[in-house]
């Protein structure tokens, strides 16, 4: 298969904003502490209010938590199907009939600090889809998806870029 065979409706999505939405809940400190605890991050910026006041004008979230604020609840009242994080990735798997997928690369650029109480908004942009390639996992395509995060004032707080590989396992 060649790149020319990438379906036109997929090519048309490249660089287009998709899934613009607000987070399900405000940024909150309990999750910040849980995240720091998970990696034993003792940075006083997240644990000591005096240090946070001195350096950042008050508490902030660990910058690496950007995607945490957009991962949907595992369950919520009235939710009939579970929402998926990085929906564009799952759309590509379905549209290109590539049942398996892995993430290989992540690039995150951190802008304005995220603070408790912030309600972030996000959008996803498909940046590229490769021609079909054969790897040790199987045959499939690499794609790059950017996720842009803004706070309630419209300030850019971060941009994540994910490289995924959707594939079919090759017959043995």
């Amino acid at each position, binding site marked *: 298969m060649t790149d020319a065979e990438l379906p036109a409706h997929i090519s048309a999505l490249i660089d287009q904003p998709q899934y613009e939405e607000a987070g399900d809940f405000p940024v909150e400190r309990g999750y910040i502490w849980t995240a720091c605890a998970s990696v034993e991050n003792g940075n006083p910026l997240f644990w000591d209010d005096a240090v946070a006041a001195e350096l950042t004008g008050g508490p902030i979230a*660990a910058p*690496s938590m950007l995607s945490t604020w957009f991962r949907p609840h595992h369950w919520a009242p009235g939710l009939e199907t579970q929402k998926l994080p990085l929906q564009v990735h799952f759309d590509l798997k379905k549209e290109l009939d590539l049942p398996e997928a892995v993430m290989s*690369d992540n690039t995150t650029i951190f*802008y304005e600090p995220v603070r408790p109480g912030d309600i972030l908004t996000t959008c996803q942009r498909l940046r590229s889809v490769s021609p079909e390639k054969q790897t040790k996992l199987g045959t499939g395509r690499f794609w790059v998806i950017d996720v842009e995060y803004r706070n309630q004032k419209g300030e850019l707080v971060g941009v994540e870029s994910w490289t995924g590989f959707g594939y079919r396992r090759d017959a043995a």
Partner: protein
Amino acid sequence: MTQTATRLLLSDVTVGDSLPSLSYDVTATTVVVGALATRDWRPQHHDYHFATERNGVKNIFLNSPNQLAWFERYVTDWTGPTGRVGYLSFRMIDSIFPGDTMVFTATVTNVETDELGCGWAEVDIAVKVGDKVCTTCKGRVALPTSPDDNPWSRRGETWVPQPRRGEDQKPRA
């Protein structure tokens, strides 16, 4: 809570410096806590049978957002709270499983002050299990240029966190 911490200055750093290594014994709890802390409910990060039977790997494994958190922690353990990470870019080569001892090491690859006066150190990080490199990462962190400087005070156009070589630093699949 009162706690003292290192506050690394740009002048403390030289290209070629090694960061202190970090060794950590990964358990199933490490993996599950990391997944839940990042709200990642996918079963390969908490369900042994799903991971082994569906994904074909030997156990549950560390998820990507949690690896990002580990890199942030590793860099700011070195810099202290005045270090402000601008950019992290990592490539996962092999999975990290319960029972592994993961070892973080890093080298400073660049030290500079940008046109806005912000000091930056760039580091190349590797996470190894035994002799196997599991994840590589490039990072860029702002450091105070003097004891009175605070990278966190930069806002808007005075904060330019993206790598100076643009897309060149992004690993490509």
